[in-house]
């Protein structure tokens, strides 16, 4: 009786030689397309058709270019939020990180117009600082939720308000402008006629999709969100996973903020304000469950695209500016209703 049975490096077990594959690997079936993350596809098509019919400029290069830019910024933020949502947590403060991370970086390390500490005038340090600030705030939220066991909704609501206040306090409401090119390139440059921010978002999307579907830690996110007790039994360090997700979420929100700040070449103290509601709406439209354990970043990006397209169509159709917000809200409700009726949404 051999007792050294604890070998970690053996890949498949040697037992059970019987042929498996009782059910051969199947292709994409109809059921797959009914999954919540695919539910936005038909709605997207409908919106594009309507948009094109209403206004010829909808399909113009410039308009599409603009849509891609806006989509990319919101998509990067929403993907960060999606990671947090998959683990069954909330992070409302992501929109404050979106605004504060580029601002603090510029404020500390640049001679930007509109106020600055001017510690050193180094664009590269400032660029790195954007991500460090994002990670630190994410870690702070993580400590509140994991160590102090605060409810994530309330804790990040508090940091949302706190950080927005810091943005205002630092600059007295002024806009930082005159950003160095290192900080504007990600949001402004174009590569092969496409916005660089779009390519960046695409890279994030591919990396996160691979991470969530094919990396062991990615699978752990779903387990933690689906049933933290079971995750613990399986030997997953639940607290550490949640902590990591808050940090990565913060970094992605900072990146998204950098993209938008770059595009508009300045950092207003209101950068990112109210964006978290769009991110939540997009994530839910894209099939991410607010109860945790379900959703994909691709779906979330679909939701973002839908949201941006709807707003774009409304603007092009000369809907009065004061009514765009109300119309968007109404359309989100209708979209949710459609996915509920189609059965794709199982109670997100």
């Amino acid at each position, binding site marked *: 009786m051999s007792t050294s049975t604890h070998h970690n490096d053996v890949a498949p077990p040697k*037992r059970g030689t019987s042929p498996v594959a009782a059910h051969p690997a199947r292709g994409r079936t109809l059921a797959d397309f009914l999954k919540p993350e695919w539910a936005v596809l038909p709605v997207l098509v409908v919106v594009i058709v309507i948009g094109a019919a209403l206004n010829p400029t909808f399909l113009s290069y410039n308009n599409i270019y603009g849509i891609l830019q806006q989509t990319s910024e919101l998509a990067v933020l929403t993907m960060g939020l999606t990671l947090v949502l998959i683990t069954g947590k909330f992070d409302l403060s992501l929109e404050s990180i979106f605004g504060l991370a580029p601002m603090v970086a510029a404020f500390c390390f640049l001679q930007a117009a509109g106020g600055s500490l001017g510690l050193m005038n180094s664009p590269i340090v400032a660029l790195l600082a954007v991500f460090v600030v994002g990670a630190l705030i994410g870690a702070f939220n993580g400590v509140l939720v994991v160590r102090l066991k605060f409810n994530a909704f309330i804790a990040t609501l508090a940091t949302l308000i706190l950080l927005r206040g810091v943005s205002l306090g630092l600059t007295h409401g002024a806009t930082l402008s005159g950003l160095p090119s290192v900080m504007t390139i990600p949001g402004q440059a174009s590569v092969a006629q496409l916005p660089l921010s779009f390519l960046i978002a695409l890279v994030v999307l591919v990396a996160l999709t691979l991470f969530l579907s094919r990396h*062991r830690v990615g699978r752990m996110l779903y387990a933690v969100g689906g049933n933290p007790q079971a995750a613990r039994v*399986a030997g997953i360090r639940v607290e550490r996973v949640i902590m990591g997700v808050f940090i990565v979420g913060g970094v992605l929100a900072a990146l998204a903020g950098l993209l938008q700040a770059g595009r508009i070449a300045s950092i207003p103290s209101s950068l990112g304000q109210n964006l978290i509601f769009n991110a939540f709406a997009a994530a839910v439209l894209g099939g991410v469950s607010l109860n945790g354990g379900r959703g994909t970043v691709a779906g979330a990006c679909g939701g973002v695209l839908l949201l941006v397209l709807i707003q774009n169509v409304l603007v092009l159709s000369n809907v009065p500016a004061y009514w765009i917000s109300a119309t968007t809200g109404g359309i989100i409700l209708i979209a949710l209703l459609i996915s509920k009726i189609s059965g794709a949404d199982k109670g997100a």
Partner: protein
Amino acid sequence: MTIPNHTADAHDLLGAGETIVDIKDAVKRYGATTALDGLSLTVRRGESHGLVGRNGAGKSTLVSVLTGLNEIDSGRFLLGGTQPPPRSDRKAWLSAVSCVYQHRTLVPGLSVAENLYLGTYQNKQTISWSALNKAAAEELENWDIPIPPTKKVMDLGVGEAQMIEIVRALSHGSRFVILDEPTAQLVAGEIDALMTRVNQLRERGVTFLFISHHLDEVPQVCDAVTVLRNGRDVLSGDAHKLTTSDIVSAMVGDEGSGTVLTGKKQIVRPPLPDDAPVVLDAAVNVDGYQDTMELSLRAGEVVGLAGHLGSGTRSLALTLAGHNRGWKGSITVQGKPVPRTWDPYTAVRTGVSLLPEDRINTGLVGGMSIEDNITMPALKKLTKRVLLDRRARRRFAETNRTDLGVKCSSVAQPVGELSGGNQQKVLLGSALSTDPAVLVLLHPTAGVDIASKATILDIVEQRRKEGLAVLLVSDEPEELAFCDRIQIWVRGRKTTEGSGMTESELVAAMEGSELSSEES
């Protein structure tokens, strides 16, 4: 001593006759299962009546009938000599019968007074706190319970909280109180206090139905005792005249009395080789238990931990699997002492896996696939460089699915859609996926169909042959028959250890009495 006036009308509900409960030939069916099968029970006014029986004997169903939560399908049920109130009249039921359950039903954050009058608030629209506290103080004083009414329930001890539950029951006017395993979570001193209290209240005209797993307590508080088996009363008599062995053999019945446990399932294992190493060795003090708990487990051995709620078997097993932070002492796995930060993560990596008892709540992620669930603990060894090796992972899941005989459309099916037996197989596959050295099983076949039960034990046995050490926590003789040796624990203390014991011996030992010593 007299019964307080303000409950006089409620008292009438139970009439003034000799018998409080009169049940004759009661039958209650749930679908295909017969929970009560011609049961009869007579509880006389002012007596303390013991009710014993093993799991599934029909105790819970009987309690639900007696408290008006359920109605019998046929038979006679008279309460205080008259027809019981309709099921919808909760108020009438509360003032007639009350039950102090195993689980606490008090709100910890509220005061004693508020808990006493929760939901009724003295039947007033507005709450007068001073009046409420005054009434509570009177009620407590009336029953000689020295607890201030303004104290928060969370600051009370377990025994004190139980007193409050009893007083609350009495404050509804009820003079018939069911105590459902009241001593399971108490320590020795509290048990004595409870016994004294029950005896005092009985002298003041309160009737008790006392459900217990500890047979030695029955003669201490009870006048009469009824034994249930398979939904029927099989023995009823004077608690002081019946011997423990009478009661135990009535509980076990003819079919189990002479059976040697380990022979029952024909699991005949060759003796362990002398050089089989000790893979788990522990001497721990677990929070909530006074004595040091010791346990040693060799490779290829199956040890059963038998005991009821409060026996400490579950706490010990969870501690060994890293799921309990409140312990001191030493745990050694495969010769190496485990770190103080002994958590599930470290345990799984050190080779100790757990099969929890409540599979869908604590064991599985219902929304994830069979593949995900089975491979979750073992993802590290299924990783090729950075990403998971999808084909190896799928192969691993498929092999396990076949070995475990999980019935499903494919390994991509969410486990939430599977039947209980198949879920349990997936959970076992997950626990075994890391090739552990020690497997801790909590009630591994509870709520599982017969075919799946056999498969589950077969798979564990197969791994055991390869050197897996198994710790099995259970109170079911059927599961314990799988063990090489069985330890019986009562209140955090190991009382008996042995192999080849009969079902009667097992039940007697779990109920806290030595069968042989009283059989003279």
